[in-house]
C-alpha cells in the first residue's frame, strides 16, 4: 500500500477525530459555563453537589469514563448506547465541561467586585453587567489556559479507540495489525498540523483582545 493510499485512509480517520473534537467543544463549552455557575452558587447544596461531580469527573481516568458511558447504561437499564461515537462525544463533553468550568470559575472570580458595582450603580441589570462588562474581560484572561485545554482535547480524542471509534490512530492501528507499521507514526503529522492551526487561531484571538488591559 502506497503513501497516498495510507494518507487517504488516515485522513478519513482524522475527519472522525476532528468531528469528535468539534462536537465536544460545542457541548462542553456551554455546559462548562453552567457548571461554573453551579460551583459559584450561593445555594450551598447545589454548590457542594457540583463540586462532588467535578471531583469525580476530574478524579478518574477519561478512558474509564468512556467505558462507563458506553457500558453502564446497558448494564443498568438494558438500554445500551448503540452508537459508539455518541458515547465518546458524551464522555468527552462531560469530562471537558468539568475542566472548563474550573477555568471559567477562576476567570470570573478574578474580575474585581468593583467592576460589578460600577455597572450596578449605573442601573445595569445583573445580566447586562455580566454579558456587557465582565464577560469579555473573563474571555481575555482565560484565553491562554483555554488554549492549553483545547490542544489537549485534540490528542485526547485518540482515547475513543478503546470503544472502537475508528479515528485516525485506530485506523493506523488497524494497518499495523496487518503488518504496516509506519502509518502509526505518520498520524503524528495530522495532529501536529491541526494543533498548529489551533495555535495560530488562539494567537489571533489574543491579539484581537490586546487593545485593552484587564
Amino acid at each position: 500500500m502506497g503513501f497516498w493510499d495510507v494518507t487517504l485512509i488516515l485522513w478519513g480517520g482524522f475527519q472522525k477525530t476532528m468531528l469528535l473534537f468539534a462536537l465536544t467543544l460545542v457541548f462542553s463549552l456551554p455546559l462548562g459555563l453552567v457548571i461554573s455557575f453551579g460551583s459559584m452558587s450561593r445555594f450551598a447544596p447545589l454548590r457542594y453537589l457540583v463540586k462532588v461531580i467535578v471531583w469525580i469527573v476530574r478524579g478518574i481516568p477519561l478512558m474509564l469514563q468512556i467505558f462507563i458511558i458506553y457500558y453502564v447504561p446497558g448494564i443498568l437499564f438494558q438500554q445500551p448506547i448503540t452508537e459508539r461515537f455518541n458515547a465518546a462525544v458524551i464522555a468527552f463533553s462531560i469530562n471537558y465541561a468539568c475542566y472548563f468550568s474550573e477555568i471559567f470559575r477562576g476567570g470570573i472570580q478574578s474580575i474585581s467586585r468593583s467592576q460589578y458595582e460600577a455597572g450596578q450603580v449605573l442601573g445595569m441589570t445583573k445580566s447586562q453587567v455580566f454579558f456587557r462588562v465582565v464577560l469579555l474581560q473573563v474571555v481575555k484572561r482565560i484565553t491562554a489556559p483555554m488554549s492549553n485545554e483545547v490542544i489537549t482535547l485534540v490528542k485526547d480524542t485518540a482515547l475513543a479507540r478503546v470503544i472502537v471509534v475508528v479515528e485516525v490512530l485506530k485506523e493506523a492501528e488497524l494497518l499495523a495489525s496487518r503488518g504496516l507499521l509506519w502509518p502509526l507514526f505518520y498520524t503524528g503529522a495530522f495532529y501536529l498540523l491541526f494543533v498548529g492551526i489551533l495555535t495560530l487561531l488562539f494567537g489571533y484571538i489574543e491579539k484581537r483582545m490586546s487593545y485593552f488591559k484587564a
Partner: protein
Amino acid sequence: MAILEVQNLSKWFGSSEVLQDISFTLEKGRTLAVIGASGSGKTTLLRCLNFLERPNEGRILVRGEVLFDADERSRHNEQGIREKRLHFGLVFQSFNLFPQYTALQNVTLARRLMAKTRGEASREVLEGIRDQGLALLAQIGLEDKRDHYPHQLSGGQQQRVAIARALAMGPDILCFDEPTSALDPELTGEVLRVIRGLADGHTTMIIVTHEMEFARGVADEIMFMDEGVIIEYGPPATTLDNPSSERMRRFLERYC
C-alpha cells in the same frame, strides 16, 4: 424642601456597628463634604445611599419619596432597587472604568443599555445619547480622548471620565468616594477642578474626602464622622474653624 433626607440609618457588619443612627438632610444644589478618619463609616454611608449595602435600620428619602425603608423588606426587589439607585451617582476611589470600552463608550454604555431594555433604542435616541456623552466629555475637557481606552489615560483623566459616566445617568445626588486618594499628587488638581465646576453649577454632591483645603473651599456643609456617628454637621465656618467637639479638634490637628 431638602432633596435628600436620611433618617436614623444604622448598619452592622457582624457585631460591629459601622453606622449608628445617622440622620441628616441636604438641600438641593448644595455640596456636602464628609470627613473623618478611615474606618469612621464614611464610605459605608455612601455605599448605603447607592444600594451597594443594605442598612439594617432607617429610611432614605429623595425629594420626599421614600427610596429605602428598612422596615419594608418586600419592596426591595432587583428591579425596584435598579430604578431607585439612579437617584444617586457614585464615583469610586479607584475609578472602575470598563477597560474594554473607550472613554466615550464608558460614558454612554449604561444609557444605551437602558434604552435597549425599554425597547426605545431608535437611531435618534442612540444619537442623542452619543451627543450627550460627547458634551459631557467636553465638559470635563476630554473630548479629544473620546476614543482612548482607560489604560491609555492617566489616573486623573480616568477619574474625570468616571465623573462624566456618573453624570450621564442624570443623578439627583452625585456621590464621590475619596475621588483623589488613588491619584498621584500632581493629578489631583484636575479632578478637584472638575468637581469644583460641578459645585459652581449647583450639582447636589456628597464628597467623602481627605482633602481638607478642598473641602473648605467647595463644601456648603461639612459632616465629621467618627466611629459610625456624626460628630459635627454644618457649614465650614463653624465645623472647621470653630469645632465644638474635642474629637473634631484632634482630627483637624492631625490633618491640617
